[in-house]
Structure formats: C-alpha cells, structure tokens
C-alpha cells in the first residue's frame, strides 16, 4: 500500500477566477468522458452515421431525379439534411444527459460531486456542439463524394455560423427540458424525451 492521497479537498478558493478555473476543468471532464464513450461505442457511431448518410442521400437522390437544373435544389437539400442532422445530434446528446447516467447508475456520484448543475449542462452542451460539428463534417464529405457538384465556394459562412449558433442554442434548451424528464418520471420520461 504505497499510494497516499496528497491533495486535500475542501481547500478550494472562493475567488471568482479560481471558481471559474475549477468549473471549467469540471466542464472539460464531461467533454472528455463523452469522447471516451464515443470511442468505446465506435461501432454504433459508424452504424448511426451510415443511417444518417443513407437518409440524407436518399433525399438528395430524389432531388437529383427532378427535371431541369437540379444543382441548386441538391445544394438546398444537402444543407437541409446537414443542419437537421447536426441539430438532432445536439438535441439527443444533451437530452441523454440524465438518462444515460441513470442507466449506468452513476447519477448519484455526478450529483454529489462538487460541480454546479450549470457546469454539468455546459460541459454536456459543449461536447454536443463539438461532436455535432465533427459528425456533420464527416457527413458532408460522404455527401460530397456522391454529389461532387456540391460547392460551398460562394457560401455565406458568417450567416451559416449565425444560423448554427441560434439553432444550437435553441436545441440545447429543448435538450435540457428533455434531459430533466427522466428525473421526474424515470421510464416514461425517457420515452417522452424521444418523442420530443
């Protein structure tokens, strides 16, 4: 038995910058944990990505089958499916915050950790955004492989970023509402979250 803890807790400073630093580290703990989980469930990640890509491609092929110049239509459909896929991913990741921990049985340990609920939600939301952006980028590359005519050279990236930011903010809000439901009604609450 050679390990002896050396860091005494309870000595945390209450200075605002210290609190901010402590809470930021805690928020990053949620981000890191979720990336570990994503890595461990990589097979399912691939399966769901294939499913999303197949859905998006089927919509775009319907667009491509229309008469006339379909380039603009395909571009609209591609952006639509990408944005929808991103927002869906953000919502589901945030909404699963409580349900996943209940399922694993870790919720009590997270709740008794010296971390505010705001930090918890911030960490989960940050992960949801980063994960959603990475996933959407991969999805875009898949779509572009099938439709090389898609070009973003004239895209209004600032406008797109604003739309994504506004959408993320709204869907994180919905996600938080959905996340709370399993706390109120364990089984049915989870079903209600899926319905949302």
């Amino acid at each position: 038995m050679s390990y002896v803890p050396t860091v005494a807790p309870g000595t945390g400073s209450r200075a605002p910058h210290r609190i901010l630093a402590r809470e930021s580290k805690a928020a990053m703990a949620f981000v890191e944990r979720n990336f570990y989980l994503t890595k461990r469930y990589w097979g399912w990640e691939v399966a769901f990505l294939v499913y999303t890509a197949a859905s998006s491609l089927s919509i775009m092929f319907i667009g491509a089958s229309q008469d006339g110049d379909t380039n603009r239509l395909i571009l609209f459909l591609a952006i639509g499916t990408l944005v929808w896929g991103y927002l869906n991913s953000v919502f589901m990741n945030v909404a699963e915050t409580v349900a996943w921990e209940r399922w694993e049985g870790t919720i009590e340990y997270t709740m008794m950790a010296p971390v505010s609920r705001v930090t918890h939600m911030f960490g989960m939301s940050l992960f949801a955004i980063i994960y959603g952006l990475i996933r959407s980028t991969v999805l875009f590359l898949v779509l572009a492989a099938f439709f090389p005519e898609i070009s973003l050279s004239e895209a209004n990236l600032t406008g797109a970023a604003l739309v994504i930011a506004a959408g993320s903010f709204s869907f994180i809000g919905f996600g938080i509402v959905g996340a709370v439901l399993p706390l109120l009604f364990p089984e049915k609450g989870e079903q209600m979250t899926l319905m949302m």
Partner: protein
Amino acid sequence: MTYTGQHNDVAVRFDGVSKSFGGKRGRDRWFRRTNEQSAKLVRALNDVSFEVRKNEIFGILGANGSGKSTLVRLISTLLITDEGTITVFGNDVRDDEAEVKRLINRVSVEASFFKKLSPMENLLYSSRLYGRTGSELRRDIKQILVDLGIPEERIGVPLETMSRGMQQKVAIARAFLTSPVLLLLDEPTTGLDPRSKKDVQRFVLDLREKHDATVLICSHDMDEAERLCDRIAIMDNGRIVATGTVDELKDQVRGTQGLLDPTLEDVYMALTGHGLVEEKLMAGVA
C-alpha cells in the same frame, strides 16, 4: 433523542434528523388522511442524533432497511432532511452544500461506473470533477489501482469485463483519489472475497492514519465493524439505539439475557431484539 454532547473536534453532527419517503397521495388526500395515517409513508430516519469525531472511524451497524443508506445519502447532499440538521466540519449540508461536497466522497455497495470505459477513463473523469488534473493524476490512478490489486494490464480495459470485486476496488480507488476529508463507506466490502476485503480494510486504516481522514462506515459485517471502528452506532428501524466503543456496547448487555462474554452480534440482538440477517421490507429504503 437530541444530542447534547460537546466536542470541538466534531466531523459530522446529526441533530434530531428525520427523513420519510412516500406519504399521503391520491386516495389518502381524498380520505383526508395525514402523512402518519398513510400506509405509504416510510419513516427511514426517526429523530437521529449522534456525532462523529475528526479522524475517527465510526461504524453504523444495522440490518437491511434500517436507514443506513438514507443516512449516507443525507450527508452526501443527495437527499434533504425533513427535520433536524446535519453538519460536516461545521458546514450545514443544506446551506453549505458546495463546501460539503468538496469535503466528502463515498463508496456504496454498488460500484457505479460507465461500464464500457476502463478504470483509467472512469477515474480520470471522476477525479477531474473534483478538480484534479495534470500528468501526476494518471500516475496516481495507476498506483492506487495496483496497490488495490488490479493488474496493470487490466487498467485500460472496459470495466464490464471485470469481476464485481475488481469493480468495487475501482470504486474505492475513485473515492480515495479525491482525498476526501470525510469518507462515507456504505457496505464497501459486500461481495468481496476475504483477501480483497482485507486489502480494502487495510486501505481504509491507511487513509485515516496517513491522511487524517474521518471515515463513516455502514455495515452489517460484525467482524469488519469490530476490526475497523473506533466507535459504533447501532441502528434499528430508523433510530440509533446505542452508541459507543465495542467494549462499551458489550458492557451494556453483559450479564443480561445470560450473556457473560457477549459478541458484537449478541449486542446487536440484545439491543434490537432481532438479528442482522432479518430483511425489513421498507420500500425505497436500502
């Protein structure tokens, strides 16, 4: 029962704490029944008062359903008292929740983890919630797991591939890594083999000796309680029926019911009127 003792070195103080689950609802409201008249009301803790001194290993001995886990959850800030106050190193668990959380950690009978993650990944996550970062964290995690008997090659594999005993050791490592000033152990060695049990018990003693920690341990293992605890409170049906050192408790029943040289189990049976193995059907109160 109200605690009246005075100690300047108090780590945990319970003063007239009560906690119930359930209560009147639906039909009870229709018939205008009070909480006490409702069949659904389960009184998990009933006017509980005691104190745990700094650097003490304090045992709570009780059967399943006696309210031990509720007591631990109240200290952990996971439940709120109905009546009475609980302080941890002078901080009220309701008013100074954040400060109390920084002082404590807990090991419960269920090793609750993200089963797909490895011990290293799980412990990195939990340690970071307590503000631990840096390269020495990985080293410390490795060290504590090896100390607890987890083979080095298993530290990176998912926890779902490990035995319950190994998972419980990882749970103990999780609590120790945050170096809690107050460690709450809720039947931590249940389900462990004798060797693992001894490892964990030695670790608890080490933690107290070298880190000046206070330990509150809930158990129904008489040998464990006798080996580890400086003082023991016997709990029955949500009430503390006796508190003292093992010798003091034995003295309380010596000579009664023909007990000349009572064991701790004899003490428990004499003071509560039943054995530890009797299950009590108290829904929602483990």
